[in-house]
């Protein structure tokens, strides 16, 4: 053992030269081969251990001794591929000797492989070994056995790294199956890694890795039992409300992918055997996913539930949700239909029968369809006959023949302009009220809904007379007919009423938000309207514009549809960013248009009634309980109102109330609510003047700061972490600014 640096006499540099020569002449494989000899292993386990250690840690040793001035061959990225090559050579030798009828042990190589992998050099060594083994095992069962043995002999403590490396690097499930054999069945550790750790505890692996892994499980009957167990465990996690609430969305996406891949591997008979379990877990899972306030999670739940339902109900009705397709759902669905190409060969007979069955079904369907068609077509013929029959007795025959072409001498004029008449909308606000409350005339009702916003904006005085009544009608207005953009039209009218007569209408709306017998939708509508109106009032330019152009839309649609959390996020983020920059450069912003901020006098009316009653549950409405979606919206609304209240008189009082509110809810389990709270803190920091913050709520802010620190570190939701970080930065900037002022 010439590289033992403990020995005096040889300079490290000389040793390295010798070693370099040793490596370059390919002596490493000889060394490994030596280790593989049965008698060597039996002789001295200590020597074996030492040898192993030296082989694996050679780059570190060399570089430690040479203080980083080591030759390139000792760089890990060069050394470990070299080692990989040596491993392959040894395996070749083993294969040869096996064919020669000689026994030999592979465990030393396995040890080397395991130790290298656990040292984090999977990429380098397996990058060489796996492609070679893939080729060698393709048609040779001895090589396959060697390879299986190679992995099986890896000690448990290194097994995870090796298995992980193989799963990540195998080009397909069939290759993985050739390389690993039934390792997961034989080795408990490998089983744990494959069926638990990689699926349920980690979530960073790519979809290809998942496909490899689950495809591998599906390719052998012994392993299929594991596949079923894995599916059950995955579904358990997917359907657990606590997991849905507390685990990051990324992990839930990962689990959903795994479930879908599992489903794609299931056979009819297997589905049959666990149909009931699948159904139960689907029901539970879909319930807690739909309960989530994050649109992404809801959609995940829907996609997975649809897929399970399609799998277990081959005939009969299938669950179908309405959601917008995006890249993620498309990717998820592709996982379900796609069967990895490797699977095609072994499972061909099944596929064929499946295909045949479906083909037969198709034929039957077609036939049914055709017979239906003819059924439909048949009565048509007599009908037309009937017509001419009924006509015949009325009009004498000769006459009817005579007049056959008699209308033809009258040449019709162009009638393309003959369209349906548009109904005139009412011209007075009071007429609108009448139409909206009592009219049976659907056309008129539609025209009124469309015209209302313009009318309200044109006649502020007339609107003020009936503002609360109008607000009430609009709040309760249901979609009678299918008007395009009804929700938006109604919302714009509501905003128009609210901005025309803010104080009574906000009083009405905020009181209704906390009263009985409203649907969640209506309560959220109230919030949306308050936000949009506040935005319009606080933004003089926008208001002027809409006033001039009558019925024109407000320029910014803050809350389109139901799933607006992204927009919220985006807007708040943009604001935070723009503001952050402004603080940093120290420039003061100058308002271009100078007109009084109409929000100033009414900001409190928007804000305080909303924040007051959140902790008093009603029989039909429990914000702190199951109606957390509305709570989330409320919190976001408060954040926006806070932001819009910048430069108003009430802002300090609002900020103080808001901070208390945030403090009370800071440990809410719903990440959407937490995001809202963090937005609240952001807008608070941006809106309340720095001096007031320091004077009136310094202690609360310190508390908040420590909470933010916790969120940044511990929150499972990435958005929350990011927002908290933003807030901390804002606080930091604020502190700097305040420090800069006195100097």
């Amino acid at each position, binding site marked *: 053992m010439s590289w033992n640096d403990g020995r005096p006499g040889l300079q490290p540099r000389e040793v390295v030269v010798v070693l370099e020569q040793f490596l370059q002449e390919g002596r490493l494989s000889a060394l490994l081969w030596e280790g593989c000899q049965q008698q060597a292993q039996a002789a001295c386990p200590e020597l074996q251990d030492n040898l192993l250690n030296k082989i694996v840690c050679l780059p570190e040793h060399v570089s430690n001794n040479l203080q980083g001035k080591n030759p390139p061959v000792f760089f890990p990225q060069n050394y470990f591929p070299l080692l990989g090559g040596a491993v392959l050579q040894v395996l070749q030798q083993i294969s040869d000797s096996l064919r020669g009828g000689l026994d030999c042990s592979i465990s030393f190589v396995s040890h080397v492989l395991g130790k290298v992998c656990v040292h984090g050099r999977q990429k380098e060594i397996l990058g060489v070994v796996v492609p070679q083994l893939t080729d060698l095992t393709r048609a040779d069962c001895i090589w396959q056995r060697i390879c299986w043995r190679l992995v099986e002999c890896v000690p448990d403590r290194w097994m995870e790294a090796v298995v992980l490396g193989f799963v990540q690097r195998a080009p397909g499930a069939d290759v993985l199956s050739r390389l690993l054999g039934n390792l997961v069945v034989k080795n408990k550790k490998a089983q744990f890694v494959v069926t638990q750790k990689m699926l349920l505890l980690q979530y960073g692996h790519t979809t290809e890795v998942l496909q490899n892994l689950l495809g591998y499980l599906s390719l052998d009957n012994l392993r299929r039992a594991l596949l079923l167990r894995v599916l059950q465990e995955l579904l358990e996690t997917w359907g657990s409300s606590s997991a849905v609430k507390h685990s990051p969305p990324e992990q839930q996406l990962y689990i959903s992918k795994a479930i879908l891949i599992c489903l794609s591997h299931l056979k009819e008979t297997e589905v049959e055997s666990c149909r009931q379990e699948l159904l139960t877990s689907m029901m539970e899972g879909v319930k807690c996913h739909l309960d989530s306030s994050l649109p992404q999670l809801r959609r995940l739940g829907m996609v997975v539930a649809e897929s399970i339902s399609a799998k277990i109900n081959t005939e009969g009705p299938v669950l179908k949700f309405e959601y917008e397709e995006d890249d993620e759902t498309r990717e998820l669905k592709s996982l379900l239909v796609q069967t990895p190409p490797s699977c095609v060969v072994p499972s061909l007979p099944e596929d064929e029968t499946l295909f045949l069955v479906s083909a037969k079904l198709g034929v039957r369907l077609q036939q049914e369809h055709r017979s239906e068609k003819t059924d439909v077509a048949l009565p048509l013929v007599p009908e037309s006959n009937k017509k001419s029959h009924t*006509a015949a*007795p*009325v*009009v004498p025959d000769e006459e009817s023949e005579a007049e056959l072409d008699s209308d033809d001498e*009258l040449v*019709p*004029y162009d009638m393309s*302009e*003959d*369209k349906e008449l548009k109904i005139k909308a009412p011209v007075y606000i009071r007429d609108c009220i009448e139409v909206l409350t009592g009219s049976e005339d659907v056309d008129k009702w539609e025209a009124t809904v469309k015209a209302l916003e313009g009318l309200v904006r044109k006649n502020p005085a007339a609107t003020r007379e009936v503002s609360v009544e109008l607000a009430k009608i609009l709040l309760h207005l249901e979609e009678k007919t299918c008007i395009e953009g009804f929700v938006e039209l109604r919302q714009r009218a509501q905003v128009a009423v609210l901005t025309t007569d803010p104080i009574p209408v906000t009083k009405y709306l905020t009181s209704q938000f906390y009263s009985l017998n409203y649907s969640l939708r209506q309560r959220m509508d109230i919030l949306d309207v308050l936000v949009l109106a506040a935005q319009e009032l606080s933004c003089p330019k926008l208001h002027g514009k809409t006033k001039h152009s009558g019925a024109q839309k407000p320029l910014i649609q803050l809350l389109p549809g139901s799933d607006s959390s992204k927009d919220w996020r985006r807007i708040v983020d943009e604001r935070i960013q723009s503001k952050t920059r402004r603080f940093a450069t120290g420039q003061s912003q100058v308002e271009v248009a100078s007109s009084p901020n109409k929000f100033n006098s009414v900001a409190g009316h928007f804000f305080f009634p909303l924040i007051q009653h959140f902790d008093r549950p009603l029989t039909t409405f429990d914000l702190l309980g199951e109606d957390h979606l509305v709570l989330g919206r409320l919190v976001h609304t408060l954040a926006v109102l806070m932001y819009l209240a910048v430069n108003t008189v009430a802002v300090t009082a609002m900020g103080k109330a808001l901070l208390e509110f945030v403090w009370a809810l800071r440990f809410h389990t719903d990440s959407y609510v937490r995001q809202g709270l963090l937005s609240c803190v952001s807008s608070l920091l941006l809106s309340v003047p720095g001096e007031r913050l320091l004077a009136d709520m310094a202690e609360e802010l310190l508390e908040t700061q420590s909470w933010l620190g916790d969120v940044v570190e511990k929150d499972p939701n990435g958005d929350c972490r990011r927002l908290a970080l933003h807030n901390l930065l804002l606080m930091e900037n604020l502190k700097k600014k305040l420090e800069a002022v006195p100097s």
Partner: protein
Amino acid sequence: MALPPPDPQFVLRGTSAAVHTLHFSCGGQEPDVPVLFSGSENGFIHVWNLKTHRVDTALDGHGRKSVYCVETMGGKDRLLSQGRDQRICLWDLAEGRTSVMDSLFTEHVGFCRCSLLKVAPGRWLMATAARGLEEVQVLELPSKTSVCTLKPEVGAKLGMPMCLKLWQLNSGSQPLLLAGYEDGSVVLWNVSMGKVLSQLICHQEPVMSLDFDSEKARGISGSSEKVLSIWSLNEQQNLQVYKTQELVNAGIADITIRPDKKILATAGWDHRIRIFGWKKLKPLAVLDYHTATVHCVSFSDHTNPRERLLAAGSKDHRISVWSIYTQT
């Protein structure tokens, strides 16, 4: 490419109220000028000179209550008018006179126009909705003697009569009455016997107007719905549905078949006049001129078919006069 629909030949303005009824009298020989009578909401009957397109006379006989039916009896000197003052007036307009000769108090409060039928020279039958809600009264004019009162059977629930059409197959034969009712049905009455011959439910809504072609034994009716109903009368005097014709917009105020039975015109609530071929109900033209509901359409009785006119009166105070399909 089909021709665009024609513009009005001319437009008569100056009634200063919605026009509810029109009646031509153009059959006279030269030097008689053709005239058009119009009845409007302010109670005036205007006599329009169709040569000058000006009002010759304005008759005020209904106490400023809406006039909704104008008919001539014989020449243009004898006029019958019906108004919302619940009166039917008979006018003598000969030699420039403008006096009400006779009048009849119908006590009917609806909008049902009366129907006239000349049964003998100097003798007319007139059907009008009467005091009883569901009743129709038939009188002889000018004697004003009541011929009969047509009452639906008890429990028939037809509602008020909405439109009437007196006719006979040929002079001397039994006069018959077609009446459209509030419940959407059209009923054929035998006037002399005072009983129902046939009843047909043509519409779901009240029948607003009907016209009947006795040669073809076929009639047409319109209601507030989007559909025209064409029905026929067989030898057993049974009414049966012949066909229905879909419309683009709902609501028909008036239907008139041209005297030569070739085309018909409808007055629509959608401000449009529609022309159909009568034989096959082929849509021929949509005349879009008015800016409010068209209340009435009327064809002229010119002896020369080429001079024939169509007039339409509308809520927009105007009377549009059209020359359309005069070549056939």
